[in-house]
């Protein structure tokens, strides 16, 4: 039986198809989830994709966080299901308080679109176990509100507990505190990052195939935990 990975589509999601394609390329079964449907259709993990859910009105992710599907995602995430939030999905996870801190407008005010080098700081999450700690990867980054901020106490806590999962290398593209590109929750099952691994899964369209490891990791996690 293949592992079922749900990908939520909100009105304004852009990268849901790429995320589903990445799941399929990794060998999983992508399952399209709809924002108004509370039913998660027995998926084993969920990806919240990039885009501009609900037009980014009010704040990025603020309205998506209260959608019917998120009630179920939040409940399952608290129960341990692996959840990955990419870009707008990361913003939704912060607005949902599944992850601490917030994402604010890039400090230079420009939209960024570039291939970004990252260091994998934590290779123990269900989404990163196919990487090595300290490994460098390059995946696309595209955002206008990607500056990760949190108070000093929260940042110290994230650092000391190994919950900074990815850090920007070379340049800090958006003013994120401590060059943080992605973090995880206390339990380690919920991961959010601004860069886009789902756009780096095929040589034809991506700068690398470095992003595929996210999706193979979560499949492996499921096989291991059910072995």
């Amino acid at each position: 039986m293949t592992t079922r990975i749900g990908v939520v589509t909100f009105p304004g999601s852009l990268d849901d198809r790429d995320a589903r394609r990445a799941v399929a390329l990794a060998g999983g079964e992508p399952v399209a989830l709809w924002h108004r449907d509370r039913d998660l259709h027995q998926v084993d993990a969920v990806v919240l994709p990039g885009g501009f859910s609900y037009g980014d009105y009010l704040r990025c992710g603020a309205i998506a966080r209260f959608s019917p599907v998120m009630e179920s995602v939040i409940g399952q995430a608290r129960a341990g299901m692996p959840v990955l939030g990419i870009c707008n999905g990361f913003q939704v996870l912060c607005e949902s308080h599944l992850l601490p801190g917030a994402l604010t407008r890039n400090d230079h005010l420009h939209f960024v679109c570039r291939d970004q080098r990252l260091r994998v700081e934590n290779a123990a999450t269900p989404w990163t176990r196919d990487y090595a700690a300290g490994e460098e990867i390059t995946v696309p980054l595209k955002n206008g509100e990607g500056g990760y901020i949190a108070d000093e106490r929260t940042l110290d806590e994230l650092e000391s507990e190994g919950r900074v999962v990815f850090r920007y290398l070379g340049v800090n593209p958006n003013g994120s505190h401590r060059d943080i590109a992605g973090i995880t929750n206390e339990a380690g099952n919920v991961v959010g990052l601004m860069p886009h691994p789902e756009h780096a899964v095929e040589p034809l369209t991506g700068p690398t195939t470095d992003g595929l490891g996210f999706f193979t990791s979560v499949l492996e996690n499921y096989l291991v935990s059910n072995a």
Partner: protein
Amino acid sequence: MARVVVDVMLKPEILDPQGQAVQRALPRLGFGGIADVRQGKRFELELEGPVDDAALAGVRELAETFLANTVIENFTVRVEESEGASA
């Protein structure tokens, strides 16, 4: 109908690049003497019923859970006098 106004501002310690961009444009436009600009949001809520303690408590909860992200923003709630009453 009663109007309740919710103002949402970034907390003082949070960088406000939009406010900074506005401030930087001021000298060029000939407006001097402005040391700092912070940009926020204003919500005008028209209540269906009277503005009593229960209604205001409801608005505060709405502001705290939805209109503001209290990780980065502060908010204030105030009742705006209707035009008829103040005339």
